[in-house]
């Protein structure tokens, strides 16, 4: 393939991944690394570097439209970013030391888990939970505009959430993804943050988390300009279009299709990792 053809095809694939990722809320980065390694035979380290950059672009690009709605909680975000950025830094350093077959296996496991999680119904939003002393001291409790007026919430289990977020950051730094699946586990399940608040807050955090490992990746030579360029521009364009049409689209069947794609890619990554084909 010539560079022109390669750039064009990768840009189109990235655009579709960004579009589907934003429509389904599952993120585009998670499918990009397996697509690049399996179908374009890109070394997984270059693929991770390019994907990480695109994760920053989608997160920062969508931030302006998310904050206008007034759901996100910057205190929860900033506090948890201590855990995610530290984890991301650890993950990025780890990624430069472990063999690529191990990276592929971890990636496969994360993909399969994400697919499973996307089929599971979300936990019901909390109603009238008692305030947690630690969350109160950290001023995390808040409220957000709901259909019948402002609705307040009390954040729970801060230490559990914080530790899980460290794990989410480490995976993000290790694999170059936003690791939305682990964030959902931390924020929705452990901390019981309402769905709308957790999604918008986590979008904000993803960019900062990715920036923490991007420096390490760039300085280790994982970010190739020729590959990162079509990936970043494609994913950004796709996700910006996705947030525009999100309101109208029927995402239920789309989510099903996308989670099947994620599952298949996850199995492929496991296979490649275990048979040393990566």
């Amino acid at each position, binding site marked *: 393939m010539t560079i022109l053809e390669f750039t064009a095809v990768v840009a189109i694939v990235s655009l579709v991944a960004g579009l589907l990722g934003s429509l389904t809320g599952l993120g585009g980065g998670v499918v990009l690394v397996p697509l690049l390694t399996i179908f374009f035979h890109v070394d997984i380290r270059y693929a991770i570097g390019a994907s990480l950059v695109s994760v920053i672009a989608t997160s920062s690009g969508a931030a302006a*439209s998310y904050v206008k709605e007034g759901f996100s909680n*910057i205190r929860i975000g900033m506090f948890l970013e201590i855990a995610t950025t530290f984890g991301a830094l650890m993950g990025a350093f780890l990624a430069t030391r472990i063999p690529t077959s191990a990276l592929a296996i971890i990636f496969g496991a994360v993909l399969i888990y994400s697919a499973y999680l996307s089929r599971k119904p979300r936990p019901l939003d909390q109603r009238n939970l008692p305030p947690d002393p630690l969350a109160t001291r950290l001023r995390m409790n808040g409220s957000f505009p709901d259909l019948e007026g402002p609705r307040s919430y009390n954040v729970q289990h801060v230490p559990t959430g914080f530790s899980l977020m460290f794990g989410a950051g480490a995976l993000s730094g290790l694999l170059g993804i936003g690791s939305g699946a682990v964030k959902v586990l931390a924020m929705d399940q452990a901390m019981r943050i309402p769905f709308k608040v957790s999604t918008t807050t986590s979008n904000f955090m993803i960019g900062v988390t990715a920036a923490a490992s991007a*420096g390490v990746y760039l300085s280790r030579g994982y970010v190739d300009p020729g590959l990162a360029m079509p990936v970043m521009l494609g994913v950004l364009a796709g996700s910006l279009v996705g947030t525009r049409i999100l309101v109208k689209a029927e995402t239920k069947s789309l989510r099903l299709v996308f989670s099947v794609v994620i599952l298949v890619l996850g199995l492929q990554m496991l296979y490649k990792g275990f048979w040393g084909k990566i």
Partner: protein
Amino acid sequence: MPTAQAPAPQPRSLQAQPWDDHRIEVILGNLLRSGVLLSAAVVLWGACVYLSRHAHESADYRVFRGEPSEFRTIPGVIHSVFNGRGRGLIQLGLLLLIATPIARVAFSIVGFAIERDRMYVAFTLIVLAILLYSLLGSGLGV
């Protein structure tokens, strides 16, 4: 600004909430978007230069070689931009992209300081320190 009449109450739905937070977030959100659009423009410009020169060479990412130092360090990238290299411009755009969330964190410190929230100024400083360490301590600055 002096006004003759008492201002009418704002018709926003959540008056009881710390809306300073929300105002700060809106400003930061717009900052992030401008940063991303700027970096995308620089990347696109670099892409045009790069493709106009290398379009017909063959693309091969099968073997990991690592990038040469001109695409791995901030001084290297700046140097290659001044040499008119397309890939240098792309890396510059990507550096701008990495800088946008870091700028967001830096500005949050100001926001929390205005609200006199010392605890969150401290938390934000920790996050900023980790980010700067990643950018400068990992060899990118040299």
